[in-house]
């Protein structure tokens, strides 16, 4: 019984990881739609409701989105901070991408609810 549970846990953890991978870009864009944030703030906002993004994955993702012009960065040395922080905000391209991804996500979620959650 215990073995069966562990095997099933291992099988679903890979699948869970794939789900998070697919959602991470939308999560970052959605967090930045709330306003300007630096890396740690994005991480805390994304992981508040449950671990959605890994620290090791966040920064390469921010770096790529910045290079693609989806987000805009600026450095700031805040009062009381020992190091400058890199703040990000959405560009107009990023806002457009977020709208498109959000629409796709809502449709996907609705279909999944109908398909999976209604089946008992």
């Amino acid at each position, binding site marked *: 019984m215990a073995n069966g549970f562990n095997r099933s846990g291992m099988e679903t953890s890979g699948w869970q990881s794939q789900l998070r*991978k697919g959602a991470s870009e939308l999560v970052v864009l959605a967090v930045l739609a709330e306003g300007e944030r630096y890396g740690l703030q994005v991480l805390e906002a994304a992981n508040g409701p449950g671990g959605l993004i890994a*620290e*090791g*994955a966040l*920064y390469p*993702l921010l770096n790529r989105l910045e290079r693609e012009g989806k987000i805009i960065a600026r450095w700031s040395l805040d009062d009381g901070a020992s190091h400058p922080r*890199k703040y990000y905000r959405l560009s107009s391209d990023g806002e457009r991408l977020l709208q498109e991804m959000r629409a796709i996500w809502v449709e996907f979620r609705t279909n999944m609810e109908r398909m999976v959650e209604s089946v008992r």
Partner: protein
Amino acid sequence: MTTVGLAGRLEDYIRRLDWALRDLPSEDRRNIKAEINSHLAERAAQGSSALDAAVLALGPPDRFARAFVENYELSGAVNRASPTNLLLVMLLHASRSVAAFLIGFAALIFYLFSLAFALMAVLKIITPAHVGAWINDGAVEFGAHYGGPPPGGAELLGYWVIPLAVLLALACYILGTLLLRGGARRMLRRARARTTGLRET
């Protein structure tokens, strides 16, 4: 003593990260280093165990750096690089991916055909009698014939073979390059899926 230990561990991580990022443009490398330094310093301010947890969460510096470098390699290749660099990147990935091998091989064939057609255009000027299109035993023979024209009917195209060969050379070049860029974009998407949003549970 603890403070020195914390600073030392942080510096050690950043030094290793810097080394692992050495293939990136220096400005980008400096920016990434500064951002990660700031991230770890903020964690370190919460204590030794918070720094340890943050270092663990980022992963070993060389693996963490790979996520940045892979994106740069492929997006740079897709957007800016010459076809030669594209082909090199594709062939470099060929040992790890069947798709990269097939795409790289097919593109190489297209480029070789492109070169052959370009060579035909040049040879037509140098030795007109050996280059052209002939009907030989009911089949059309198109190309350069070593040792004189083939036996059979008269040459069909004359000097029109030059624009035709140039056109074919261009078409093969464009097809090879489109194939490479399409393939590189596909690999970039796969690399991103591997390296972004990853949270191993």
